[in-house]
Structure formats: C-alpha cells, structure tokens
C-alpha cells in the first residue's frame, strides 16, 4: 500500500503571495517523516499541498511537481477528489462528524461517497479500522453512540480510524497531538509506529521530542524573514538532524537558540 512521494521545485501561492518556495524532497515509503519549524513557516501549507487540501482556500495554487509512485498529483487529468482518496489526512483538532455515530464516523468515507457495501463487510471494515487505531476495545460496546461523546484523545483516534478506513496509501497528520493531553499523545505516538508498517506517514509537529521519538526522517522549515516565503532548510535522517545538523539555523532552532 505505502508509496513513495517525490516533490520537486514546489512553490505554493495564496493568490499572489508566495507562501512556500522551492521544496525538493523525497519521502520514503513505510516511514514516518516529521516536519518541524517555527509557526507560520509553511509546513502545514506544504503538508496540505501533498493531498491538494490547500485548494479549499480560494486563490491557492502550486507550481512544481508532486509525484507519487510515478503519478503526478497536479497533472491536468487528475481530480483532487481522487488524490484525497489515496492520501488521507488527520487534523490538529479532532473533528468527528457530530451527526454520526462512532460506527458511521468510521465508514464515513464509504457512506459519503454512496458506495454500496454489504452490511457484514461494513462491520468488518469498522472493526478492522478501529483495531488499527487502537480504539476497538474502548468503544466496541457503544458503536451507536455519537462520536462527539468520546474524550479528545479517543476522538482523535476515531479520526485516524476514519482516515485509514478508506485504505489510503499515505497518511498526513497536521499536529495531531497538539490539542491532547500527554497520555493521549503517547497513545497516538504508539499508534503511529504501528501504522508505519502499512502507510507512508508525514507529520507536522511543534513538539521536537515527538519528532525525535517517532520519525525516521525530519525536515526543518524556516522563514528567511518577515513576508518572505518559507523554505525547507534541511532534510535528513532524524538522528542526524538532532545530533549533528548540517545547517546553523537547524541547530539554533533545535537547541532553543531560535530568535
């Protein structure tokens, strides 16, 4: 399932404003790649451009290439809706659908697309996805209760279950733990290390310990100045970034000397 992502010369614009400039990176399959950097440096924008979610904002566009296993995401014939089916996303704040039960939330991707499926297949899918998100044991007796009744950490795992239920090849996570307490955060980090066996995971995080704990490779984004576009300053194996970074800016940021 998991796939390799190649990004070359990617510029991202909001109308005429250049938000991210010149990203070249190659993300390995079956790995966790962390993106770190100060606020407003474009790492979330970059993450969203990987499944064309930034296009939700009017005026957003990209130049350059994002290639997944030889297929250009921004080719003329490619429908963003299809891209998002292959590349799932988990957001900063847990966002289960408030009108749906836990069960319906998990199979929302199927239901919302009106795809026909046998009841027994749906049951299987729900169980498999919830087990995959380490949530099955906690909710198996109350699948018909509203999803918004769960705790924050459980809701976030429900959202992960929902994302993996459509069997994407890549999973993007935009600060998935920033709204959660430490124990829920730990549960999600454990889950990520399990999920990387099946998916390519890219995670944006503000928590550098988290990046160091879970990721195999890390990219550091930075702004060269106010009003300037964000850039990918350094991309290396996580160990190298945190022990012996190539760039001065990376070292300053990681050691807390960031001004």
């Amino acid at each position, binding site marked *: 399932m998991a796939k390799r992502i190649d990004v070359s010369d990617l510029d991202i614009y909001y109308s005429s404003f250049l938000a991210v400039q010149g990203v070249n990176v190659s993300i390995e399959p079956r790995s966790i790649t962390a993106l770190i950097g100060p606020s407003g440096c474009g790492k979330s924008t970059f993450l969203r451009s990987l499944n064309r979610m930034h296009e939700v904002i009017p005026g957003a566009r990209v130049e350059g290439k994002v290639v997944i296993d030889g297929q250009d995401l921004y080719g003329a014939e490619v429908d963003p809706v*299809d891209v998002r089916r292959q590349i799932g996303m988990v957001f900063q704040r847990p966002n289960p659908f408030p009108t749906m039960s836990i069960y319906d939330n998990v199979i929302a991707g*199927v239901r919302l697309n009106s*795809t*026909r499926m046998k009841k027994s*297949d749906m049951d299987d*899918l729900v169980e498999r996805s919830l087990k995959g998100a380490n949530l099955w044991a906690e909710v198996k007796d109350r699948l018909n209760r509203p999803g918004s009744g769960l705790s924050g950490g459980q809701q976030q795992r429900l959202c992960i279950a929902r994302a993996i239920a459509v*069997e994407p090849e890549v999973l993007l996570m935009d600060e998935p733990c920033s709204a959660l307490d430490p124990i829920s955060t730990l549960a999600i980090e454990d889950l990520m290390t399990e999920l990387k066996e099946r998916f390519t995971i890219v995670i944006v995080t503000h928590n550098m310990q988290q990046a160091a704990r879970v990721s195999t490779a890390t990219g550091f984004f930075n702004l060269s100045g106010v009003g300037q576009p964000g850039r990918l300053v350094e991309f290396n194996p996580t160990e190298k970034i945190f022990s012996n970074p190539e760039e001065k800016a990376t070292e300053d940021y990681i050691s807390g000397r960031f001004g």
Partner: protein
Amino acid sequence: MTTTSAPPSSPPQRREPAAQKRKGRFGDRLFAGASTGSGILILLVLAGVAVFLISRSIPALTADTADLPNEEGLGAYIGPLIFGTLLAAVIALVVATPLAVGIALYITHYAPRRLAALMGYVMDLLAAIPSVVYGFWGIATLAPALVPFYGWLERNLGFIPLFSGPASVTGRTMLTVGLVLAVMILPIISAISREVFSQAPALHREAALALGATRWEMIRMSVLPYGKSGVIGGAMLGLGRALGETLAVAIVLSASGVVTFDLISSTNPSTIAANIALQFPESSGLNVNVLIASGLALFVITLAVNMLARWVVNRRADFSGAN
C-alpha cells in the same frame, strides 16, 4: 446512486477511476451551477420587480390628465398619498423607537436572565402576528379607546396644529394608525437593538463598572455609544416596514385624499399601500396603471430607506471587529 457493485470484503481500493471521476465532476458542476443560478435568479427577480412595475405604469405616466381618476394629473393624485405614507410612518417611528430602546435595554441589562429569554420570545411572537389582525385590533379596540383621549387633546392642546380637531368620534385617525404601526414595528427595532446591546464588549462594560459606575452610567458610557448606529439602522428598517404596511392602515384609517397635519380628525390622507389595497379590486383600465405607478413610488421610497438602513448597519459591522 453509484452502480458500482460492492467490492468483496476489501474496502473500495483502486476504484474504477474514469467513471467515478466523471460522475463526481458532473455532480459538482451541476450543483455549483444550480446554486449560482439561484443566486442570479434573485438578481433577476429584483430587476423584474422594477421592470414590470415601470412597464405597467408607463400608460399612467404618459396618459392625458383628463383621463386620470382625479382629472388633475398623476402628481396631484400620488402626492397626498406619499404625504400620508410618510406621516403615518414618522409617527410610528417617533413613538416606537424610544420604547424599543427601553425594551431592548430592559431585556439585555435589567431583566433576570430567565425572564429575559422568555420576553425575547414574546417579542418575536409580537412580530409574527399577521398585519390584518393588527388592523382588526386597531379598529375594534384601540380606536374606540382613544376617542376620549382625542377629545381631551382637542380641548386642552387644540392650539397645536397637530391636535386642532375636530376630534374624530370613531377614533379612526392618523394618530391611531401611527400607534398601530408603532406596535407593529416595535419588535423589529427592539430585536436589532437587543442584538447590538448584547454585543457591547464585556471588557468595556466591566471596565466601567470597575470604575464605580452605576448601571445607568455603565450603559451610557459603554453600551449606548457602541449600539448607536445599530439602533439607527433598526429604526430605519422599522420605518421601511411602516412605509409599506398595507392592511392595518386600510382597515383602521378613515381616509379622504386631503393633505393635513391634523392627526385627530376624521379626514385624513390615505397611504399608498392602503390606497392600492382598497382601490385595486374595483379598478380597471388606466386606473390600474395609476395604482401601479403609485406602487412604483412606494417601491422607490422603501428601497432608498432600506439601502440607507443597511448602509448604516453594515458600517457598524465593519469596525465592530465581529467576524
């Protein structure tokens, strides 16, 4: 919807891209087109209202003076009606605005919370009562109740032209109409005032109270300045409603196309809307065109008032920082 057969056990992977994609795009385009079309339809309807009214009133505008119902010209026919319309609406506005502000202040800053919610609901109900029922109430209850009061006004304040009399014995006067209209627009003005008063920044209010201000001083310092343009906008909207109100006026007023400021006599100028409602069913030929021309005048007046009101309200929204 989709005719794709269920993929066995494994979830929808590697789906038949072409068919699905075209379908999705077609649905999207259809839906976007339908919603944009509805929006444009609104533009067309409003343009249509103007175009049809103008086209049907052209015969009246170009007709010979002698053919018109009053044989004196369109201006002489519509003039008193415009005067009556404005007079009734202004009375309503003068009476309703202070009351509405009082009510809004009471609900937002004085009443106990539970009572306030209930009272807000009661005011909404007041707004929902059909205008024909207000007319019934006006002629059956309010007008007779005001007759002694009008007599008193004539005897004691008759030196003011507004109350020179002779006082109507039925109570079906311009002042009664103004009061009925005031009751009708009260909920509109108070609803908008209520909204802006309750949005006054809590920080300002608390700052005033922390300085040792009494409740009234707090309201005067922080709530009223903040809500001023909202109240003005609400009053203008109420004015728009009062200008266009038809049935209550048609039922209550005893009209006879004069121009007078005497509010308590039984000879009163009619209003445009009431005149149309009363004359239209029995009119034919050119008279219909004349009535539509008067409707066009009403449309233009209310349009101007409403645009002004929206402008005032929106200007407030611009620098209130909300949204």
